């Protein structure tokens, strides 16, 4: 059993938003339009936070942090969001009743509500990801449909899943290779090595959520979020 995790090197991130666009295209994340956006209803599973100061501008790409002890799943009254055995915090849209308790519980604002049916089925959509209806919460899923596909491919070829078979869209798109994805339990993997790095830290570590998205940074300022 794997434990999927991600390492994002903030020193490499240029804030180019390639990961954001890759995520939107991969997961059929809708553009809500200017009117809805003005009301703060933008949906962006991968979101690049920006901090501008006199010295420099800093970026922090924030997918769902896939907490190992997620607060959002504990408040879901219908078991629509849960942590699966491989550590992915999933959201089952067909089951979600749209109560938004999970959004309130998430300390990282990684969950988004569909106030309207923002996107119609049509050409240009990724057929592997369902289009969310109105009134459900959605979130980054570590592109777990890619995991299913990778498993099927490996099975068809009669072999086990190997490192690199399953990578998220954001990690694949990053031009500076700031995002590394893989199995945290696989000791030899790049992601496990980087997660043990002295530069590594996690967002809101004091909350005890134990995110599986690690950040790498040398700047002291990043250690407190």
């Amino acid at each position, binding site marked *: 059993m794997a434990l999927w995790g991600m390492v994002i090197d903030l020193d490499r991130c240029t804030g180019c938003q390639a990961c954001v666009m890759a995520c939107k295209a991969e997961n059929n994340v809708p553009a809500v339009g200017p009117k809805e956006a003005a009301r703060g209803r933008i949906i962006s599973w991968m979101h690049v936070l920006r901090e501008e100061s006199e010295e420099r501008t800093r970026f922090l790409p924030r997918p769902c942090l896939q907490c190992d002890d997620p607060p959002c799943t504990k408040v879901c009254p219908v078991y629509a969001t849960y942590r*699966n055995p491989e550590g992915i915090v999933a959201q*089952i849209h067909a089951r979600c009743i749209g109560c938004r308790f999970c959004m309130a519980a998430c300390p990282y604002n990684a969950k988004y509500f569909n106030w309207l049916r923002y996107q119609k*089925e049509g050409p240009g959509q990724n057929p592997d990801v369902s*289009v969310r209806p109105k009134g459900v919460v959605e979130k980054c899923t570590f592109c*777990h449909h890619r995991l299913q596909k990778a498993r*099927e491919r490996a099975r068809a070829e009669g072999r086990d899943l190997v490192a690199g078979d399953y990578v998220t869209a954001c990690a694949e798109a990053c031009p500076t290779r700031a995002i590394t994805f893989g199995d945290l339990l696989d000791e030899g993997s790049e992601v496990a090595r980087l997660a043990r790095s002295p530069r590594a830290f996690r967002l809101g570590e004091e909350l005890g959520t134990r995110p599986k998205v690690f950040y790498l940074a040398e700047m002291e300022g990043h250690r407190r979020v």
Partner: protein
Amino acid sequence: MLGAVLLAILLSLALSTWSRQPAAAKVAEQPISFPHNVHVQQYKLDCKYCHTEARRSEYAGLPSVTRCMGCHKITAADRPEIQKLAAYAQRGEPIPWVRIYKMPEFTYFPHKAHVRADIKCQDCHGKVEEMTTVSATTGPQLANDLLHVAGMRPGAPPLSMGWCLACHREQNRTKKDMKAPLDCVACHH
């Protein structure tokens, strides 16, 4: 009086919207009346001879008109239904078959995984080899739900999630090194 009318309206509404239709389909009028029973029983064709995609794709797929004509250029070429087929072939048009089995959009069902796991087509699609017209049965839903209300536990109706899961659990229990997933995200993404 008003109460009774209101109750009647509500009741009829409730009954008319009862069928949850996960993948419900009725017997459909097809452009060509295609007898599965003749092809399977008389000519012993394997399902995957025509539905070739099943073993390597998410979808089982339908044969192309050319594939049909592979046999029917000669076989039974004088029958009226086959002449319809020949006309499609001549015009170079696909046959507008009416879809019978529909999975909800939020459900991922790959045929290939099931074919690879040696699940028979008939386990889900019923005895297609005896059918003249394929129809998906969704089972007695109202009766099922009433039994549930009465505290009995009938089996889940076909093509519902409970039905899928019942089979997955059964497979895991009875077959060695079978790993039919029970994780929600295996099918819902």
